[in-house]
């Protein structure tokens, strides 16, 4: 029977990979979400069409299949290698969550009342200035609470990367359990606690953003 410190010291070895995938995925999915979200409100049909296609494909298929696809199918089929496994994982998670999050970006931009655009036209602001100074600052305030929710979901999604051979928290948990079967409850309880502790700052961020977003948004 292994002791708690024993189990903990094993699991901790996976912390670095989990955090790395988490942070990189948050950065990349945010960029993807902003670009795709802005593209979907573009007046260019080709741009909206292509991004719409991307969003529906990645929302409509499962993340785990996408992970396998990037990791095993692409290299086998087309000899495309996406670099190290870490980047394969980050890419799959970011494209998947970027697709979901782009919908918040699009929705928030469209939710800024039309009177805001009209007032900026009346003040002779250019299209770019309208977006940059009026629409996006207000849209960001609206999207922040939901954005926080997605960050927590990304954390939970990182646990899938052990399936393509990355050595994250869950991977070390499974390794430990396979040699200490009777410790299974303790291992998985500890894993839950560790994921929750990592999620705490993200939860706090979401709460804070909810109060921020209540201020400074036009209504009606």
């Amino acid at each position, binding site marked *: 029977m292994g002791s708690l410190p024993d189990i903990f010291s094993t699991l901790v070895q996976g912390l670095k990979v989990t955090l790395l995938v988490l942070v990189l995925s948050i950065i990349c999915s945010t960029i993807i979400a902003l670009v795709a979200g802005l593209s979907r409100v573009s007046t260019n049909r080709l741009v909206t069409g292509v991004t719409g296609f991307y969003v529906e494909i990645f929302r409509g298929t499962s993340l785990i299949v996408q992970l396998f696809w990037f990791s095993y199918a692409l290299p086998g089929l087309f000899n495309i290698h996406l670099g190290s496994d870490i980047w394969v994982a980050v890419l799959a998670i970011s494209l998947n969550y970027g697709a979901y999050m782009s919908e918040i970006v699009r929705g928030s931009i469209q939710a800024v*009342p039309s*009177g*805001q655009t*009209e*007032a900026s*036209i*009346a*003040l*002779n*602001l*250019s*299209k770019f*200035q309208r977006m940059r*100074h*009026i629409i996006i*600052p*207000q849209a960001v*305030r609206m999207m922040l609470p939901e954005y926080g929710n997605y960050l927590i979901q990304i954390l939970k999604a990182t646990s899938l990367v052990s399936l393509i051979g990355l050595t994250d928290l869950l991977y070390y948990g499974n390794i430990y359990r396979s040699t200490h079967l009777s410790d299974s409850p303790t291992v998985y309880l500890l894993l839950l606690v560790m994921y929750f502790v990592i999620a705490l700052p993200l939860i706090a961020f979401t709460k804070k953003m909810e109060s921020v977003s209540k*201020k*400074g*948004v*036009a209504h*009606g």
Partner: protein
Amino acid sequence: MAESIVQYKDVHKSFGDIDVLKGIDLDIQPAEKVALIGPSGSGKTTIIRMLMTLEEPTMGVIDVGGRNLWQMEKKGEWVRADDPHLHSIRGDIGMVFQHFNLFPHMTILENCMLAPVLVKNESKKEVKATAVEMLEKVGLGDKIELYPAQLSGGQKQRVAMARALMMRPKVMLFDEVTSALDPELVGEVLEVIRDLAKEGEMAMILVTHEMDFALDIADRVVFLNDGVIEEEGHPEDILVNPKSERLQDFLSRFTVNR
């Protein structure tokens, strides 16, 4: 007669199957104050929204300072105006909206400073001095650091006027600017417009339901009905001695104190 600052020539506007304006001819002189009155749905607001480039006419021409607003010449042909063309003319026009449309994420001072700094590239320091002066003029000199949500409707509308004035337009459009206000706040807004009208140099087009006010400050009143100008002329003639039956009928719903 001086050259018109704004000229509508047989302007039509349809939304889908609905013809809102059916041939509008209207000349506005520099510094002239024109009140647009008429039943709701008669197209008053559409007239000024086309001038502010918020709606495009279906047919006809609008000239601003002698330049065609919605069409431009390209290789000897008249084509639909593009953004730079609209941008180059729009600077002469300012607008105050029924629902204020202040920018909620900026202070009142920032609301007033944004456009002069971004659009006219004026120095921040000078713009700030002008903005403070302008806000003092509309009676809000002590509130410049507040956000729009912290103000009453009347105060918001006064900020909106200061913000529009910052761009020094030659023509200012007022779109039912007191309609969204509580009755006790209407007076303070009209007071500011009255002061502006007295200063004189700016042309003003007011879409309004305040008949006393129109009588008081307008040089000319235009009565719009069912997409056409039914009657226009001196405020006294229009509001006190209306000729057409429709105008008489319309005015009977208001009490004009004179």
